């Protein structure tokens, strides 16, 4: 209830019943009751008016708590009971006025109202503040219900008798009271010392200042010295003086409590951080007597906070100066913090970043990254993925994103701290290098072929030349008038020898060519697949194809020529990627599966390459494997034909199927190494 004092004399014609010879009558008249549950003074019921008149006329402390709100009215004698709460208590609900006694008073009040009979309390302790010191007094509250309109209980008349003296008399008289006082002062001083709290009082009229010992100690002043206002101002840090002066002026004007933080410079030059709490003290007549308060040394706390702030600042500086994106990713999918570089690069708002920053991720990478986070979240493992992030310029760059799990005290992972490293230039260089290497390999192979052909020609030329000339010689020796059979026979022998030599050259060369390619060994098909994926990685990325591996563990080994099988797989994967180059309306996904296969000859493996490409329409799938069949303008059509013959040479089968959805699946089965060949 906000009751405001009204200015001027507002004594109306209708309030003569209040009388005029008491302070409270004046105060009651001056309050704007219209804002309270009691309503305007002129509309108060007769029962209240009569009770209040009785109350104001009483020479001993009487109060009324009226209406369901128990609004408090009282007489002049009651001011002593309220002490510092006067005149604030006027017009306020009883639970507010007697907050500290309410536990006891409420049941008594309620009982009086409910039963319509008077009741009283035992000695109740009331803590009062007088001239900056608290003192305890005891009162007996006698409560009488007062009838309101229409036979309802309107309120409670509370008559108060002080029992302080009596209560004290009942206690044993204090012995050695001076010693007790000294002891309690010593306790207080010790408590102040331990808690780093000093106390003070400022007497308004005399401008006298009182400091406790701890206050002197805190400010570094000799305890004998009398504190003055000038001395205090002198000690306050110059930067804080003006602010403090304004605050004091404001508080003294309004007689209000205050809490102020400031710095002092002690005589020894040390700067301390002080918190000062103060409240005004009124006397019985309601005039401000003094301010009392405490000073608390906050230096350690301030320094600790400052250290945390500095450490936080250094962390920020560090994180912002790292030439990578720095972030933390939480289990709930939100981003805990990010550095400036990340927000500046992406141009995303704080809200967008907080939600995971998915908007900046390349649409082709989103699903893969989500899956990776799901895996990592389930296992609490480290995170590592490469993906494309859109810059504020709209261009995507590739980043290597790495996160390390952070665990709580129970060892549960709840967050990842990580970085994104820009690998775009690196990857481009690597791709260019790979491209160059591929070209070089091609050129080398051609060169090697050319050299091989050259040396083969040379190796064969010599015996062929010898054969030709020996044949000519033999003819000549036989064609003579006297045929020289011996010479002819020698020539023919040399022909046979040279032909053998040519045959040897051819056989050796063929062996050389076949040796590395066709040697079979026990192979783990998963390793063969992985080797191909490594080779094809850049090509897939260039075509924005996401390759999903689905390679089962514990597959039986197969007996095969690694290079040939890799060629088959490479062929199928490249076909799959190329079949999807025109696809724009769905993810370009290539699934590679390796799983056990139970064939006629026992356990083997099945490898399938499933694309989401254009498929092969109504075409007979088997036609694809004909030599020279191709749908590509620059293809020879040898790939699938050769692949099928390689697989069949390994005792397996290679075929193609239409997918239920878009695209085609090429798959082959191979017998396990322990299975007898066909």
């Amino acid at each position, binding site marked *: 209830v906000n009751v405001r004092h009204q200015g001027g004399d507002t004594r109306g014609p209708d309030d003569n019943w209040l009388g005029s010879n008491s302070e409270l009558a004046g105060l009651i008249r001056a309050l704007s009751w219209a804002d309270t549950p009691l309503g305007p003074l002129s509309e108060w019921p007769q029962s209240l008016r009569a009770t209040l008149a009785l109350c104001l006329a009483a020479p001993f402390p009487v109060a009324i708590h009226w209406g369901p709100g128990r609004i408090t009215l009282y007489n002049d004698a009651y001011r002593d009971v309220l002490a510092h709460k006067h005149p604030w208590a006027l017009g306020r609900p009883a639970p507010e006025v007697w907050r500290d006694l309410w536990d006891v008073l409420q049941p008594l009040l309620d009982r009086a109202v409910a039963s319509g009979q008077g009741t009283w309390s035992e000695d109740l302790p009331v803590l009062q503040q007088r001239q900056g010191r608290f003192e305890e007094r005891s009162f007996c509250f006698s409560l009488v219900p007062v009838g309101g309109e229409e036979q309802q209980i309107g309120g409670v008349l509370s008559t108060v008798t002080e029992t302080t003296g009596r209560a004290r008399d009942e206690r044993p008289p204090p012995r050695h009271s001076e010693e007790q006082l000294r002891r309690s002062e010593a306790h207080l001083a010790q408590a102040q010392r331990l808690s780093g709290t000093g106390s003070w009082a400022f007497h308004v009229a005399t401008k006298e200042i009182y400091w406790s010992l701890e206050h002197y100690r805190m400010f570094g002043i000799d305890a004998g010295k009398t504190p003055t206002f000038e001395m205090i101002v002198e000690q306050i840090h110059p930067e804080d003086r003006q602010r403090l002066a304004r605050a004091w002026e404001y508080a003294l004007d309004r007689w209000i409590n205050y809490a102020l933080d400031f710095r002092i410079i002690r005589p020894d030059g040390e700067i301390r951080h002080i918190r000062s709490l103060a409240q005004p003290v009124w006397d019985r007549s309601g005039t401000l007597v003094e301010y009392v308060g405490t000073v608390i040394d906050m230096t350690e706390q301030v320094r600790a906070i400052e250290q945390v702030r500095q450490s936080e600042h250094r962390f920020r500086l560090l994180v912002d100066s790292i030439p990578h994106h720095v972030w933390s990713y939480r289990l709930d999918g939100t981003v805990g913090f990010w550095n400036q570089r990340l927000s500046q690069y992406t141009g995303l708002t704080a809200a967008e970043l907080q939600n995971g920053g998915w908007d900046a991720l390349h649409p082709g990478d989103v699903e893969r990254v989500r899956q990776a986070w799901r895996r990592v979240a389930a296992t609490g493992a480290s995170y590592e993925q490469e993906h494309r992030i859109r810059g504020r310029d709209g261009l995507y760059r590739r980043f290597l994103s790495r996160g390390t799990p952070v665990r709580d005290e129970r060892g549960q992972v709840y967050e990842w701290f990580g970085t994104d490293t820009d690998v775009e230039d690196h990857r481009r260089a690597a791709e260019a290098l790979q491209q160059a290497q591929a070209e070089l390999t091609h050129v080398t192979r051609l060169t090697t072929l050319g050299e091989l052909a050259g040396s083969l020609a040379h190796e064969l030329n010599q015996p062929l030349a010898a054969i030709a000339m020996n044949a000519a010689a033999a003819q000549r*020796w036989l064609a003579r008038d006297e045929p020289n059979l011996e010479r002819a026979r020698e020539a023919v022998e040399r022909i046979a020898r040279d032909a053998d030599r040519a045959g040897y050259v051819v056989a050796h060369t063929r062996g050389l060519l076949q040796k590395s390619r066709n040697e079979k060994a026990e192979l783990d098909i998963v390793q063969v697949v992985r080797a191909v994926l490594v080779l094809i990685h850049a090509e897939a990325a260039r075509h924005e194809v996401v390759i999903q591996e689905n390679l089962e563990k514990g597959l039986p080994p197969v007996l095969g020529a690694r290079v040939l099988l890799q060629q088959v797989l490479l062929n199928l994967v490249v076909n799959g990627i190329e079949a999807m180059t025109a696809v724009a309306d769905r993810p370009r996904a290539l699934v590679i599966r390796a799983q056990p296969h139970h064939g006629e000859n026992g356990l083997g493996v099945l490898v399938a390459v499933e694309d989401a490409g254009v498929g092969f329409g109504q075409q007979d799938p088997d036609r694809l494997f004909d030599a020279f069949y191709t749908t590509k303008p620059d293809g020879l059509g040898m790939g699938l034909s050769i692949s099928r013959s390689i697989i069949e040479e390994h005792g397996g089968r290679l075929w193609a199927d239409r997918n239920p959805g878009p695209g085609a699946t090429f798959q082959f089965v191979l017998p396990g190494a322990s299975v007898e060949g066909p």
Partner: protein
Amino acid sequence: MSEERSIVFVVDDDQAVRQSMESLLVSLGHEVLTFGNALEFLGHPLPDAPACLILDMRLPGLSGLDLQSELIRAGATIPIIFVTGHGDLSIAEVALKAGAVAFLTKPPHQQRLLDAIEEALRRARGGRQRSAALKVP
């Protein structure tokens, strides 16, 4: 006419080629001397009789072209027929410009080889007659 005795030198690192070449040329009535490399040939005195040289291009040590230029520098006028496994046009051009009678690839066509030898020996005889005429006017 009384056919003068003529000598055909063969320089080739392949023994089978040397043997077959020798057999063929002997069957045609030539006197034949074979060498496995250029230095062996240079160490042999050139005869007074008409002679020609059948020279392989690729040889250990001095190559066929090296031997040709060495002979020109020494003032030897023996006609040369190149027989090589490598039909490189640029090398053939160098050899022919330097005065080679023919540049044949292996295996040599029999008739072309025989024609080249006839032509080489004719040049050898002509050279000797011209020098004899100058010597004995």
